[in-house]
């Protein structure tokens, strides 16, 4: 029989893509992402024994990852997301991949212009979560989620069109 720690490590191992995406949306430098990743894993580990509904692991991971990242940003207001990925000193595969993918780079730059809550809402929407799921994770009503998504999409579209025109 698996111990609770083995079970936890297996879950995190399978769902860690969520953590990397949350990190990418909120933090630019590798060291900040590394520290935040560590903190998220610890917070997940801490709350794992109390997790009752194992059916919605994804929502739980999103919730903890987003809350940890936002409180980290609020605690250290010096940490800001800066556009123009990638960081020169950052050699992770994902960032190298983003630097080759200009549309993705533009999208991330555009997302960085949103406020903290809208960034998480858009991250969840981009990951194809339903309005109800997003509402459950963020803790606002589904109608409010709809309003915020429409507004954020408009901003993203405008910013990305401007960048596209700028490049042409």
């Amino acid at each position: 029989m698996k111990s609770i720690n083995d079970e936890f490590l297996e879950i995190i191992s399978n769902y860690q893509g969520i953590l990397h995406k949350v990190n990418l949306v909120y933090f630019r430098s590798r060291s900040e992402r590394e520290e935040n990743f560590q903190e998220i894993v610890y917070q997940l580990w801490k709350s794992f024994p109390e997790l009752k509904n194992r059916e919605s692991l994804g929502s739980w991971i999103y919730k903890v990852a987003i809350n940890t990242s936002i409180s980290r940003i609020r605690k250290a207001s010096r940490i800001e997301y800066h556009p123009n990925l990638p960081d020169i000193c950052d050699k992770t595969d994902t960032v190298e991949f983003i630097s080759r993918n200009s549309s993705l780079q533009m999208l991330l730059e555009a997302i960085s212009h949103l406020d903290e809550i809208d960034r998480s809402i858009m991250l969840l929407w981009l990951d194809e979560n339903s309005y109800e799921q997003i509402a459950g994770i963020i803790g606002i009503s589904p109608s409010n989620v709809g309003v915020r998504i429409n507004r954020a999409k408009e901003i993203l579209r405008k910013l990305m069109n401007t960048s596209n025109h700028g490049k042409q």
Partner: protein
Amino acid sequence: MENNELQAIWKTLNTGGQQRSKEELQLLLRSKARHTMNRFVTETLISILISAGLFVYLIITSINRANDMYYLTINIILLVITLVSIVSGYLSWKTLRGNPSDQPLKDQPLKVWLEKRTSVLTKWLYGRYCKLYLYLIPPLFILILLSIHVYFEYKPFLEVLNNAESVTGLLVALPIGLFVSFFTAGRIRRLRKQQLEFLLDLQTRLSGI
């Protein structure tokens, strides 16, 4: 740009390059414990350095005022207390830091590594003498204040205490200084308690790893 396009772009994001193995995730949790412990080590080192600075100051001023018996008595009391705090601080620092090979990421189980250190910290913060600082701060502060004030008045101890202006200055500085000292000590203690609680919690949860 269509709505679906945004999601399509996002789908191209591949985080596979950052995937970590279970072992790496486990190490990550362990290094968090070490990181928190390092804070205690640094704080202890800073307090040792401050005490060492005070020790040097007391030696120099005692040499310069070797003829003033009252002043010398105050400084000797302070020197003894400072020396005791340096030695006890050093011993704690040594235990907390351990030797370079004594790392939780190598052979030693993290739980054992943590236990060694949390027992020292628990003694500090919850042991029999944990409230000693409340009784030590007022006399220590008065002695340090007298030592500094008398020295920089460039007059003998008794002469300074017979001067009404000097005494008024001391009486004004005393409550302010005591308030600041108690406030700072309380804040540091609260912060250390939080850090210790984190480590104890970690220690309990680590039983299975």
